[in-house]
């Protein structure tokens, strides 16, 4: 019982910027770091160390160069952990993997984040508004409390 209560009352979130256009990164920084949409009042604290984190929020699509780094950071987070894919590029590659002319779409990108690590929450939008991000993070925290 103490386990569930303490997991709901203190959550550490970590950001990973993969290959995106930066719009989602700025909206997450707005959500976590600006006084308007202060995320700390909802008991979610921003950290930069995977050993301290519970939730990993990934923005941007995944390219061949950054996939090993993403995997290494994901494996460094201790259980229980969740992954949130923020923005349409993180969900399925966005416009860079699904549009193309004569030469097809990009050959450096693998696609969304789920090609490399398992994803628990998808937040669509290009970019999603800070209110959407806060709502998504707040609704996914009970999943964390229920893990063993």
């Amino acid at each position: 019982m103490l386990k569930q209560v303490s997991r709901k009352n203190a959550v550490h979130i970590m950001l990973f910027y993969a290959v995106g256009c930066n719009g989602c990164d700025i909206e997450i920084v707005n959500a976590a770091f600006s006084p308007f949409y202060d995320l700390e009042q909802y008991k979610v604290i921003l950290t930069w160390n995977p050993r301290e984190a519970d939730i990993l929020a990934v923005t941007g699509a995944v390219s061949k160069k950054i996939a090993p780094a993403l995997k290494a950071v994901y494996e460094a987070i201790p259980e229980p952990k969740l992954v949130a894919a923020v923005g349409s590029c993180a969900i399925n590659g966005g416009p860079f993997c699904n549009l193309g002319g004569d030469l097809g779409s990009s050959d450096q990108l693998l696609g969304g984040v789920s090609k490399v690590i398992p994803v628990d929450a998808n937040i669509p939008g290009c970019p999603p508004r800070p209110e959407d991000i806060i709502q998504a993070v707040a609704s996914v925290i009970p999943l964390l409390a229920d893990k063993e």
Partner: protein
Amino acid sequence: MNWTQFILATIFVPIIAFAVSTWVPGIMRKIQARIQMRIGPPVLLPGFWSVLKFFFKKRIDPVSPLPRLYHSIPVIGIFLMFFIILLTNPEWRDVLGLATLVAIAGLVKVEETLYIVMGNLSDSVLSVRMPYPDMVSGSTMKAKVRRNFEKISVTRAFKFITVGSFPLYLGLFVPAMIAGSIGIMSIANYQGFYSDGFTLKSIFDLNPLIFSVPGIIGAIVYFAGYLVIINEYPFSIMHTKADVIEGPTLEYAATARAGYYLMRETTMFVMSSIFVTLYFGIPPALSWAMIPHVILAMILPVLAAIVSAFTPVLTFRQVYPMSLGFSALGVIGVIVAVL
């Protein structure tokens, strides 16, 4: 020596220190948040709920040459702090002649060197081990040793020990010059504290050192030293986000991270508690004196939160002159105390 009083004090004073210190980081974070014009986290979150949550995470093996030593360092830190606060307790006055300022200075020095040991034993995924196809593309520099963030923090911790810690020791020394003795209880007795029959009304009969001229100078110098030893914002280059992310503590996870949080909290509380004992004359005795002691021990963390909200991180270009300036102020305080 009254054995029952002694054993009660030895057990309960650290427990009270432990319990009160879980509030301290939360209060600091809330004050910083209100200065930044936002609602901050709930007051118990950084100190209590985070620690509990980390206890329930799955244990991992840290990437380190000596993992068991690495994991035992926070425990050593916590016990050092308990030892320090027990030395300022009236029941420990006659124990082997240890209750002097020299013992406190020595134990604080050991606490500072713990960071050096920590940094050398840690190798995080965020620094050198981050996988990137770098080494093949070559550069003008070949075969240079790659140093990770933790070792850079160790160099900085060493620089802090040599130059940055003078203010703290001078701040400890000024009350000894005023009271004429290095025994902690003698300094408290000089200000009018007697451990038998202390009631809340006796506070008004005390004559605290902080209300005298050398006392105020010493208090300011001690405050600067306090900021250095808890590595708060003006002097937090050892774990700044700008390059070393978190410094020597990067590989702590789960239980060990809870231990590190507790070590940090108890340091914040105990160093402030020493300030109250020396400058206000109210030691953490297991009697009515504990209540004003705990209340007054919140002054330094609150002031530290306010100062840290308004300053950037200073590099050594600015830290050296500032530290030497505060040390000069401390020497002036010692001279005024003698005269």
